[in-house]
């Protein structure tokens, strides 16, 4: 079972990948234009992968959301305990 919190956390983590790539990996004076270029390219590809994972997680979240909606609809058949 995947807890929705876990999905949200995964989203944060994957969003954090983009931040990390921008601030830590692609920034700073590395002293090697070749390495800076390679890391820039790597960062670009990694961002695409992390975004793809993020979207996959999001898609699962949206489906869970839809599932929640169906539970709500189902719940309408339950007679309320009115006073």
């Amino acid at each position: 079972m995947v807890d929705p919190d876990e999905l949200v956390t995964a989203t944060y983590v994957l969003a954090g990948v983009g931040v990390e790539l921008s601030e830590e990996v692609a920034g700073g004076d590395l002293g090697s234009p070749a390495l800076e270029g390679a890391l820039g390219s790597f960062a670009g590809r990694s961002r695409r992968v992390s975004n793809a994972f993020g979207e996959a997680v999001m898609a699962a979240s949206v489906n869970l959301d839809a599932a929640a909606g169906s539970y709500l609809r189902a719940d309408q058949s339950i007679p309320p305990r009115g006073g």
Partner: protein
Amino acid sequence: MGESVAEIELPDGDPGAVRDAARGLGAISAAFESGGATAERALGLVGGWTGFASMGFRDSCASYREAGEAAREACRDAAVATGRYGDRLADARERVRKLQGEAEDCLERLKAAQRRESDAAEREQSARTRAQDAALRSPLDGGLSLGEHAGALNDAEAAAGDRIRAGRAVAAEREEHERLKGLAKDEREDVKEAGQEAARAVTGAEGRLPEVTYPPPPAKPDTKPADGGGGLLNTLGELSGINDAGRAIKDIGDGNILDGLGHAAMAAPTPFGKVAKGGKLAKEGVEQATKHGDDAAGAAGRGAGGAPPKAPPGAVVRGPDGRIISRAGDDGVLRQVNPEQRKEIIGDAREELDKAGQFVEKLGRDARHGTPPPPVRTKRQTAAEILRLLGKGLEEAGG
């Protein structure tokens, strides 16, 4: 251009920045591992996902877990190569600093030898002048100046010897300085080669990242979708709702209907913001982080050369263990937060969530008096209907 001392330049680059890059790659490696596993399990649960699909993950990887593993290993390899280069750069800079120190000493010795050479040349010249004067005076003073002439010649010879020795020292120190410069140059070239080697390794690692191929975007529909519009990316902004909706599923599944209804109410999107107010902070945090994710996605779409993604002021990013890693400043740049700031953020959020919990509890009690609502089509409408119904039930009960 690296810092230059005694005509020797340090190798370019900040080893700290290189190590930060390696550490960053290591962190990303771990994020991919957990992200891949989560995606795998989540998508296994909602098997019908076809969403933004056709990412070519499955072309090259059997599963998201494997894709996550591949990304993790690629990042780890890149981190190792970058870290190795960082160590090499740091060592080279240390060695070149030593060479700079030796070269400074060498240049001092060179200057001293040059001064000795110049001084000896002056003494030699002076002694030769004295010898010449004495030789000129000698016929006039009956040879009395011959002794002075001989002494001056001796002084000139001695000074010439000093000049020659000093000149040799100058040549030797120049040679030593050139040798030191050559060693430093070798170090710089070795570092440059190490950088290129690391670049090749990173490029190789990039080739092992999972393939991600997006299909062309579908044509935009002319009309707004029935669920209020926004599609996938806008729906992401309602993640806090998803959270509560998820709890609703669990609660209702466990037979805990009232709490389930409470969580469902919390899942209502912002138009019903009075209900969702207690979760405002958490929701904002998620919205901002997901917006940031959108920015990152946009940046990825624009390619690696895109500007660093920015987040709305106050947005927070959490690690896999739930700790707050970064917070956006007024300039929208996410920065790592220190433990004190982290406590402050968590404290604020916790207070608001406590209020939310109390509200949900109250809502759950009130729900006992509700009546069945008519069928609805969407989650948003469902939540609204529930709230309307609860209000109505309360009124009826009160009346």
